[in-house]
């Protein structure tokens, strides 16, 4: 009885990419993860610290894969501080991926929310797709992965728009404002988004207003990663198994929770600020 994906596989950190002062990408070799689909995630075990979900931000040749971490809490700080040759446990890949739709595509991302969106963009650009990517953020120092986005979208009919709340980078304002102005002028087949939940909620509302389908990557506290513990529930769904990618229909069903509340480690409802 082979156990392929639900037991931690020990991998070595092969390379570390400095994305910003607080964000790094860690590259490792793992056959299963290198074949993951955009939007899927892994449970990353930092021995002696914790195990946390991370979106796969890179699936490569030679069985390489990677994720992008911002140091926020104890576990993400431990990941951020990892050195080459340090070891990690990996379970997965898990979850429902994005469904690529080759057409006029809009991508709205913020911060490390770009992590699962870029592998998707890379797949979309392999076939003809026109991509409008809007990258939002608070201030210049918080932007990450923008160079990779530029490199990905260099060759086809694509546009990158940067918005920052304080005007220190790109257009001053919110990504969702730009999004709305584009939708007023241009037909879009599908919107993909990932970032802070309040942004996702706004992106969803605007998408609904213009009747454009959307796929959004959501985040909740995860423990089992395989859909049995219920820690990551949102409405009647489990983010780890039924998500993390939610389409318009599922988002509509969870609208009374989206951007409003989540559960803490005990399962207690806590408001999203």
């Amino acid at each position: 009885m082979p156990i392929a994906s639900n037991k931690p596989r020990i991998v070595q950190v092969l390379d570390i990419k400095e994305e910003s002062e607080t964000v790094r990408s860690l590259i490792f070799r793992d056959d299963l993860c290198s074949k993951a689909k955009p939007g899927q995630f892994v449970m990353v075990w930092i021995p002696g610290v914790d195990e946390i979900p991370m979106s796969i931000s890179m699936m490569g040749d030679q069985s390489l894969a990677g994720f992008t971490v911002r140091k926020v809490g104890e576990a993400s700080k431990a990941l951020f501080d990892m050195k080459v040759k340090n070891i990690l446990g990996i379970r997965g890949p898990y979850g429902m991926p994005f469904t690529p739709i080759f057409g006029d595509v809009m991508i709205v991302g913020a911060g490390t929310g770009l992590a699962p969106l870029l592998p998707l963009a890379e797949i979309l650009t392999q076939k003809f797709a026109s991509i409008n990517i809007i990258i939002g953020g608070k201030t210049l120092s918080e932007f990450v992965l923008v160079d990779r986005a530029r490199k990905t979208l260099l060759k086809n009919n694509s546009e990158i728009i940067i918005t920052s709340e304080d005007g220190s980078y790109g257009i001053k304002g919110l990504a969702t404002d730009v999004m709305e102005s584009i939708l007023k002028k241009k037909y879009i087949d599908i919107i993909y988004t990932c970032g802070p939940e309040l942004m996702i909620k706004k992106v969803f509302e605007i998408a609904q207003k213009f009747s454009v389908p959307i796929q959004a990557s959501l985040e909740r506290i995860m423990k089992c990663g395989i859909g049995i513990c219920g820690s990551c529930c949102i409405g009647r769904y489990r983010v780890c198994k039924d998500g993390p990618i939610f389409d318009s229909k599922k988002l509509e069903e969870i609208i009374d929770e989206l951007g409003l509340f989540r559960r803490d480690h005990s399962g207690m409802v806590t408001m999203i600020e």
Partner: protein
Amino acid sequence: MQVPDLSIEISGFKMKSPLMLASGIFGTSIKLLRRIFETGAGAVVTKSIGYVKRMGYNNPTLVEVYGGYLNAIGLSNPGIKEVYKELSRSKINDLPLIVSLFGAETYEFTEMISLLEDLKVKAYELNISCPHVEGFGAEVCQNSDLVKQLIMAVKAKTRKPLFVKLSQNTTDIVQIAKLAENAGADALTVVNTLKAMAIDIETGRPILANKIGGLSGPAIKPIALRCVYEIYQNVEIPIVGCGGIINWQDAIEFFLAGATAIQIGTGIAYEGLSVFEKIKQGIKDYLILKGKRSVKEIVGFAHSF
């Protein structure tokens, strides 16, 4: 041939199907529990609720091993007051909801039940068998005086059916079963997970943050089945079989051993949410093949040999 009757009744609690969602799966979210009910479960049991909020253990809290899963979630739960709030604002009238409770002291159980009594909760399940939290669970199950005192105290507080979930991590589960019956339990859930562990050989570390956890899944099925079989010979109250049931053949074995109903937990990890519907269909087909009109007709049949 008419469709076999799968409905059962335990101490006045009527279920359309003998399949229940085991405790610990899917947390306390009523919407998620309702979804399971809609996929074919006759009843759903909440995650075990305690007197106060518990954050549970750090991750890893789950790891797959050959033949099953190990978990040490650590009885994380929002505490009875929060759960009461969630239940109060949820529509549960039509939901066959059983609330699982754990505690360290008898008064914790009785106070929790007093609080829940006015809600449309259908029954309670006492978790006196969690294998991985010190001071709770299996440690209670090993103390026969405490088990007796606890069940009697709880029965004095409620007229709703009381399920008692037993542990195999004890010297003699049959003795505990008899004791629980004599103290007034309406049904016995047999069994909880078995104390177990996994070590990662690369790092040399135990994988679970808590080191020790509970084993569930196919690996424990023969043990759970034996427990049901032995207990059936010694008690009169209904037994709810639990442990490693992932397909209809497993379910039938438990009925033949003496289970009136069965609970499914880890089966969802193997088969997904359709596990209830698949097992239900398998049971119906089996009963038709055997010329039985009702699932009740096969309960304990293996004891005739």
